[in-house]
């Protein structure tokens, strides 16, 4: 477990050092390229802003009304069976469907429970380790006109389910409940 903590600690500094090192070695104009790339970042954020406003509104209303608590309460028997905290369940369902809605949910959950709480860490891990399965499958198969995707969605969702359960398990091991 100590190794995993060390990996987390050194991942970003190591990545930056290696990238800058390779960049310098390959004679890339590092600062110019940094600025060029950072511009793309602005574009990315501006693009997600309108859906984010709508989705955060929906999530906020859903939570403030008590509807979210109702859903969490109703899901307790199922989530207890799999050993996952029921507070993360809305994200489990939203994650494969929409990236921006998941982002709104993660932000909402982290605000409510805190980034350094157990639930905050679990949703962070889930968000980082899974993809928008439905979207990716639709776009990729749609681009070549494949209609019968056979077992692809099933396999991708099984993988996603495992990543949810492992997220809870590894966060318990690393940080405690």
């Amino acid at each position, binding site marked *: 477990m100590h190794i*995993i903590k060390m990996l987390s600690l050194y991942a970003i500094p190591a990545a930056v050092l290696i*990238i800058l090192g390779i*960049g310098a070695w390959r004679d890339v104009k590092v600062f110019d390229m940094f600025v060029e790339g950072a511009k793309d970042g602005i574009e990315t954020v501006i693009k997600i802003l309108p859906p984010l406003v709508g989705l955060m509104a929906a999530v906020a209303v*859903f939570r403030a009304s008590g*509807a979210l608590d109702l859903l969490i309460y109703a899901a307790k028997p199922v989530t207890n069976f799999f050993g996952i905290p029921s507070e993360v369940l809305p994200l489990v369902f939203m994650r494969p469907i929409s990236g921006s809605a998941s982002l709104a949910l993660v932000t909402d959950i982290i605000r409510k429970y805190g980034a350094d709480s157990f639930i905050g860490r679990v949703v962070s891990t889930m968000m980082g*380790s899974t993809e928008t399965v439905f979207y990716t499958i639709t776009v990729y198969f749609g681009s070549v006109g494949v209609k019968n995707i056979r077992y692809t969605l099933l396999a991708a969702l099984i993988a996603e389910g*495992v990543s949810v359960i492992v*997220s809870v398990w*590894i966060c318990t091991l690393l940080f405690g409940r």
Partner: protein
Amino acid sequence: MIRLKRSDTIIEKVGIHNGIPVIRRDGFMLNYIWLFMLLAGFIIGIMNGRVEEVTRALLESAGAAVELGIGLLGVICLWTGIMNIAEKSGIIRFITRLAEPVLRAFFPEIPRKHPAIGAMVMNLSANFLGLGNAATPLGLKAMKELQMINPKKDTATDSMSMFLVLNTAAVQLVPTTVIAIRTFAGSKNPAEIIGAVWVASISAAVTGVLAVKLLSTIYNGR
């Protein structure tokens, strides 16, 4: 002017990569989910006597979304800037060279020198680095190559399924968005979840590969 059918309005063409039209349909289910959350929220809010709280939540959330956007802007720009250095240094090619021999083993149906392998590995490498903008065109190119060796054009091959599952379960070296949210939310150590993300991603990828292998034998046996 031709009136669009209702379903057409949620399909948005985002561009053409290598002659393939890219259709964005992230919203197709979201239309219903969004509607449900707001309607259910207001109705249950009224039933619970929480009209004031619900109204305030609605209005405050708009500002909160913009705050979040601005909060994420810094970290995301920082990282896309650094990753652009990586991209211009040819790092995708470097990782592709390392990963290709390993990944080849996952696609036994594909001929050794076929360009599909290269495109898939490039896409997975770009995903690994979190280079979303570079990853999608490479992924669509890979699908196009895979489609060329597909005997039944409207049906997915095992390689396509394997590629999609690896793509959606793949490890991301630095999960930037999550780290940005955690930083914004005032975490003491925003990056502490990186190791946990890797463990969860690798577990998902291994399970995904096993699931594809198992399901393909079941489906092909039929």
